[in-house]
């Protein structure tokens, strides 16, 4: 299970690197989606107990996975989805007004 923690760090830093270095606006929004997904994976991982079962208690189980982290993960997924939708709308509007998706060109046209 430790390798999943390394994957979370790898995805988090890959997303942060994408946001910092990419020139294309859509690639930046993809970077945000990657960081969002890595945080949700971390949330699920934090709540996981080896050998546990899903938090649906139709029968009595010995080890049950932590339900709070899954509820927080569900909330973060929906928040991430709506923030991405707003970002993409602004990307469309910027592309229509400035005609390009490249940040450097936008900064020049900005004047």
């Amino acid at each position, binding site marked *: 299970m430790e390798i999943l923690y390394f994957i979370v760090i790898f995805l988090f830093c890959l997303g942060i690197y994408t946001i*910092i*270095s990419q020139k294309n606006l859509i690639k930046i929004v993809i970077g945000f989606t990657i960081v969002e997904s890595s945080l949700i994976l971390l949330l699920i991982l934090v709540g996981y107990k080896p050998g546990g079962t899903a938090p*649906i*208690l139709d029968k009595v189980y010995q080890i049950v996975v*932590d339900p709070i982290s899954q*509820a927080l993960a569900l909330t973060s997924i929906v928040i991430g989805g709506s923030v991405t*939708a707003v970002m993409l709308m*602004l990307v*469309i509007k910027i592309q*229509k007004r400035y005609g390009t998706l490249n940040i450097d060109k936008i900064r020049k046209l900005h004047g």
Partner: protein
Amino acid sequence: MIRINEMFKKLYKISLVVLLAIFLLYVFNEIHDLASKSYLSEHYISKGVQETGAINLVTSVLYDYRSFDTLGEATVILTASAILAFLVPLRKVAMHGTKFLIIVHQTMIFIVPYLAVLGSYLILFGHLNPGGGFVGGVVLALIPIVMTITYCIEFSEYKFKPNIKTLLEDLGSICFIILGLFGIVTGSNFLASGQSNLGLGNPGELISGGLILCLNIIIGIKVGAGMAKIFNSLIKGE
């Protein structure tokens, strides 16, 4: 000269990210040795079903123990769909729709009832099996979305009028708060479904879990209307 400057800037960014990675590795390594205390989740697991009446503990946490988060959550979706509807320009812009064969229209006619059944199942059985208001709502939102893709947007707007969607969203949020006030009326605090002396029913059945079922339906309709409006606004978005 510019190439070196470019290389230097790229190296600077890579080093920043590598530094962050090392910092996080150190933090995770240290944290992993400490035993993680989880007495709150133990309480939810042991007493969750009796206190809230819902089998699916995630739904009981979302709609009863921490239902204030879900209220904030529903407001985020409403604001997002309001922003996108607000940013749409007034003049009509046709999306470059592709002409689909008759097969696509036929399969679409088969898919829509299936989506409706699946969506309402996920909403209604939210507190018994995995699913819940958010997931069922988005599945229900797929119906207008599939219509927008196969037919033109005017047809989907004709079937599901934008005003009706906005009305559904706002009414859904108001009903969510009214159900919360129901908790105050019956003597206990705001948004109290497990604690308010409402019959919880026996956990296995459909009508059980106090207000969780109604909250699920309201959130499902609200998220469905919101996501459909977001999708249509993105398409109409100039």
